[in-house]
């Protein structure tokens, strides 16, 4: 009797073709109806798309939020795009059918995944178009992470024109720390990034650098001039402490708490209010608060970097671990099923886990240079990576997921990793922003 294929094997045996026109266009129109009016989406075209219509091209975009498909697909209508989406999303019951119907390309984020590259090449060779968000995950902080290493090489290899969308206001509409919808305004600018001729002339490194420069966007800075009000139902700071876990005044970590429009340090009382324009205001004369959550985030990163660089650095916590189902899909918007637990340790030699999975002993070690960062499926409460190709999600006991993420990123960067932060603000700039 033939072996019953797991969902993972079935997924990786598919040879994808350009997105099917009818269902794709239906979904693009539905997105326009459902989201564009609700979130106030405006499209600005710096190029005439007619010259590219029906031809092969790649679209790259900053990845502002989980709604980016709705902000970008209508911009290129009626052209179809094969989106490149996180592998694990294909195992969630509410997305599984749609992603497969639209020939969406799965990608294991932040690890080599030849399957994904094969499908991209296939779609482009057949005259299709692909949409890549090269940061690899939706923005954590409101601004960009550097594009994944190798993005420039891939674009050069594909050799077709690269268009881009710059999404402004997308993060503030649905932040990473709080997934509540906050309608305001979203501006989507469409432009040419690089022509085929420019791609062939430039080196892979030059393309990578150009990509980073052109896609960079900080939603908080944008809103200083755009002055858009995002309706937050008096819960603007809800879960903000999961992102901003460090107190800028007493410098302690994991002492912040947030509720309503307020974030406060439980150790020293440092307190701020976040309004519907995402402006932070210090509460009380003694409070020391950065000018925007992004500036706060960068300062926090500097502190984490110092901690990671110190002698005997170690981060340790008990976690539950989640995996993807072998058969069937995840229900009720879950991102994994809990199948084990153990102790997670991060130190200069990398990430280490000792515990159990599915009732058996499970251990792994990943060196810093092979672990640039994690993925975060939904909000800032848990994080995942791939261990020998298998999806493993970590559920920490404390609200420490962002600490784990930042510490792992800085550990990678301080220990010879290739994914360096081209946006790390210098500390002087951060200090003067308070």
């Amino acid at each position, binding site marked *: 009797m033939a072996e019953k294929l797991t969902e993972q094997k079935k997924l*990786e*045996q*598919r*040879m994808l073709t350009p997105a099917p026109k009818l269902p794709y266009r239906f979904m693009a129109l539905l997105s326009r109806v459902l989201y564009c009016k609700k979130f106030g989406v405006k499209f600005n075209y710096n190029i005439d798309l007619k010259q590219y219509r029906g031809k092969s091209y790649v679209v790259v975009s900053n990845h502002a939020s989980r709604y980016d498909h709705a902000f970008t697909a209508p911009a290129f209508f009626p052209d179809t795009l094969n989106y490149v989406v996180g592998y694990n999303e294909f195992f969630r019951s509410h997305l599984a059918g749609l992603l497969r119907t639209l020939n969406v390309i799965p990608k294991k984020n932040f690890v*080599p*995944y*030849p*399957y994904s*590259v*094969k499908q991209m*090449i*296939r779609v482009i060779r057949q005259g299709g178009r692909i949409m890549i968000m090269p940061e690899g995950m939706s923005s954590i902080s409101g601004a960009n992470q550097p594009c994944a290493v190798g993005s420039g*090489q*891939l674009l050069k*290899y594909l050799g077709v024109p690269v268009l881009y969308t710059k999404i402004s206001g997308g993060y503030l509409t649905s932040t990473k720390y709080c997934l509540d919808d906050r309608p305001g305004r979203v501006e989507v600018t469409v432009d040419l990034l690089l022509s085929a001729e420019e791609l062939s002339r430039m080196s892979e490194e030059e393309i990578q650098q150009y990509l980073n420069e052109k896609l960079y966007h900080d939603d908080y800075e944008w809103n200083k001039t755009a002055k858009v009000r995002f309706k937050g139902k008096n819960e603007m700071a809800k879960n903000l402490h999961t992102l901003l876990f460090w107190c800028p005044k007493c410098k302690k970590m994991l002492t912040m708490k947030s509720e309503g429009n307020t974030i406060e340090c439980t150790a020293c009382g440092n307190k701020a209010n976040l309004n519907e324009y995402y402006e932070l205001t210090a509460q009380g004369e003694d409070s020391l608060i950065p000018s925007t959550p992004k500036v706060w985030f960068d300062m926090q990163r500097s502190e984490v970097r110092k901690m990671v660089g110190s002698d005997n650095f170690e981060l340790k916590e008990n976690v539950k671990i989640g995996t993807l189902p072998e058969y069937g899909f995840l229900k009720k918007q879950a991102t994994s099923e809990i199948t084990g637990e153990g102790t997670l340790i991060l130190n200069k030699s990398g990430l280490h886990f000792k515990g159990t999975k599915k009732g058996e002993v499970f251990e792994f070690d990943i060196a810093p240079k092979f672990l640039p960062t994690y993925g975060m499926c939904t909000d800032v409460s848990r994080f995942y990576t791939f261990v020998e*190709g298998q999806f493993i999600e970590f559920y920490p006991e404390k609200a420490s997921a962002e600490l784990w993420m930042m510490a792992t990123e800085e550990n990678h960067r301080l220990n010879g990793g290739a994914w360096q932060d081209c946006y790390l603000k210098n500390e002087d700039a951060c200090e003067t922003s308070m």
Partner: protein
Amino acid sequence: MIGQIIEIIAQQKEVDPSEITGETDFYNDLEMNSLDVVSCVADIEELSGVSIPDDKFTDIHTVNDLAELIEQLQKGK
């Protein structure tokens, strides 16, 4: 199968098929990078109807490696 693989590689690398044998190493002899190999594999998958699992990629160095892998996968289909 080996002849078809050689044809695909020769076309992609714009070299004479007679310059490629079973022992030809993708990386050392043909100076292909990982994207070239992935692209070549994508073509061969369509020709053979089998999908090469990602964990097998590190085993592929020569034309013979690829041909043998395809044959194994076809037998197991």
